[in-house]
């Protein structure tokens, strides 16, 4: 209950601060709030846009939840998202299932590089995953300017994926939404209703005590990292096959980093992540509307994320590890 309250307080606080900061641009806060609301959930079109943004946010959020719950600081969802999409694109000609599977495997492998460096060299994953993000980002940049560039060669972007690899959609909402929600439930079951989930959480809270209790701590860490990477990779695959249909340089759009905000606002609870992802999806969509009708930069959504994270940390509800 207390955790739910803190989450809600952080979200409301963030929106309130956003609205107040709009005064700096000479807009009354009430007016800004109205634009934010209408622009995010006020019309079928806006709601659709919000839901489409919710999908990658929820998936990267779940990715971060799993890793942080195990006490591994995977800051690499962004890079895993990118390599997932790249792998998806490469095998798209074999169909939808192959493309999704490729994104999962690629994300898991990319994240596991950080695990390997941790076990082999003791390198902290906070650093290695961030560095892997840069590698992933530039790999994508190279691909869309080089081997994967569209045949016309006009823009730094790839061709579109073949139709048979495109995710089915109803009313503009692709099937990725269903996948993401099912994964949220699955993550909850795994974390809170299975022995392996208990061992994972024990590892995250107190690896020493977990070891004494007979938990293979390194195996838990490696597995959590791989699952976390797999989900972030899948997020990239779904974004490619459901929304953009092609790769381009700014493809990841910060979804990996936003996943950290989603997970923290949800206080690392996979079901709460559904609400949290929807909130940030709405915030991003609403911020776009703010830019169009009030001429306030859409980066204000990023500002909102920062406020939420700081609020959650300030309330002290987030302590996965000492």
């Amino acid at each position, binding site marked *: 209950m207390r955790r739910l309250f803190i989450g809600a307080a952080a979200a409301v606080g963030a929106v309130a601060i956003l609205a107040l900061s709009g005064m700096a641009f000479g807009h009354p806060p009430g007016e800004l709030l109205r634009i934010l609301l209408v622009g995010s959930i006020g019309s079928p079109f806006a709601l659709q846009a919000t839901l489409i943004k919710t999908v990658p946010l929820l998936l990267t959020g779940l990715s971060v939840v799993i890793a942080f719950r195990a006490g591994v600081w995977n800051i690499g969802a962004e890079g895993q998202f990118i390599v997932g999409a790249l792998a998806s694109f490469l095998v798209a000609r074999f169909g939808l299932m192959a493309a999704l599977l490729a994104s999962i495997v690629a994300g898991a492998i990319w994240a596991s590089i950080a695990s390997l460096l941790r076990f082999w060299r003791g390198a902290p994953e906070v650093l290695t995953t961030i560095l892997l993000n840069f590698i992933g980002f530039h790999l994508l940049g190279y691909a869309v300017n080089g081997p994967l560039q569209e045949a016309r060669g006009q823009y730094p972007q790839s061709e579109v994926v073949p139709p048979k690899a495109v995710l089915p959609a109803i009313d503009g909402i692709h099937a990725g939404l269903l996948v993401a929600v099912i994964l949220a439930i699955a993550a909850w079951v795994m974390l809170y209703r299975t022995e392996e989930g*208990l061992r994972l*959480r*024990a590892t995250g*809270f107190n690896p020493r*005590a977990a070891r*004494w209790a*007979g*938990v293979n701590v390194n195996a838990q860490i490696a597995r959590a990292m791989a699952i976390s990477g797999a989900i972030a990779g899948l997020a990239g695959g779904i974004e490619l096959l459901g929304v953009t249909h092609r790769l381009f340089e700014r493809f990841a759009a910060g979804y990996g980093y936003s996943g950290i905000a989603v997970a923290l606002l949800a206080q690392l609870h996979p079901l709460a992540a559904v609400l949290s992802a929807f909130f940030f999806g709405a915030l991003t969509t609403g911020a776009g509307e703010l830019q169009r009708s009030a001429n306030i930069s859409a980066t204000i959504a990023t500002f909102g994320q920062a406020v939420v994270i700081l609020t959650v940390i300030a309330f002290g509800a987030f*302590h996965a590890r000492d």
Partner: protein
Amino acid sequence: MKLEHVSKSFGATIAVDDVSLTVEAGEIVGLVGENGAGKTTLMRIIAGELEPNRGMVTLDGSVGFVHQHFLLVSEFTIAENLRLALGREVQFDRPQRLIRDLSVGEKAKVELMKAIAPKPRLLILDEPTSVLTPAETSELFQTIERLAHDGTSVLLISHKIAEVLAVATRTVVMRRGRIVADGKNMSADDLATAMVGVRGAPPTPAAPRKTPARSAALHFQNLTVSPGEIVAIIGVAGNGQTELATTLRDTLPRRTTAHIPEDRARDGIIAELSVADNLALGAKTSARTLIERFDIRTESPQQRAGSLSGGNQQKVLLARELDRRPEIIVAAEPTRGLDIEATQFVHAQMRASADDGGAIVLITSDLDEAFALADAIHVIYRGNLSDRLSPADAATNAGRLMAGLQ
């Protein structure tokens, strides 16, 4: 320096219990006792780092305190560390070397310099020789004697009886928060006996046990534990008990072995998880049943394990570890810090497990506990186990073995 009826407790644990002590100028007082006897707490009270709950501390001049652990910035040079601590330059051999490049002996010298440069009237050294080579130790003792000759009082905390006898002009023994012996001409035997509190007659041996239901025995070095047997490992803390427990953890098959780690809060329960989750990490039986059977006082199975009292945390651990009827049980300090009721409960559980055929290793610094439970005893000293002793033999020899005199 004068202490009058000083007491200090942390929560329910009494660390220092009504201690009075006077140290004259130029005296070198050796303070010995087991870990947890209250030595370090008492020294921290004298140094002003802790406030006593009761009693008076009278000091004539300043106190220099060399802590057991190095308090040095390892990326700084010697000179920088000394300036940081003292606020001025001090003479030292090659002061531009980085702390991290120094040997432990040299680090100890820097620590000592930090303490003696302000010319304190009283110098406290907490286990200063534990990391030193014999040559460094004798060099340190020469320094101490020179300081004492110049009028500084020295309080030297140590486990090592021989060293204390070599340098101290007077020896004080602490046990369970109290001063149990204080004198100028004590023999090593007197000290060892006072330190560990070995009593003359061992308690009546436990009744012969039923035929064990299980058959796995434990063999490790010269340690053999048969099914249905409790073998105690006793010794002054820091002689390899922790390493022994860790080695047993990493070598014995986890499926058939239970472990009660010595540091309950850090290695035992997982404070952030619920009681039910902590139990489920090892036990098969439902949390509600275990809470009832082990009499765990908790509001609900969903309560955070970290919010339980120490005794109830230990019950959670016992329930988690014993529910699967392990063949081997390694319990390290299973009753440390527990009240009498909880201690009796833990002892009853260990006896019951032995009666049920479990092979039990009890690593303890509580000799009363060892004598109350054990069928046989080994003394651990500097990482080595003594021969297997009967409780009666142990009662006569344990003190000397624990002090490394035999």
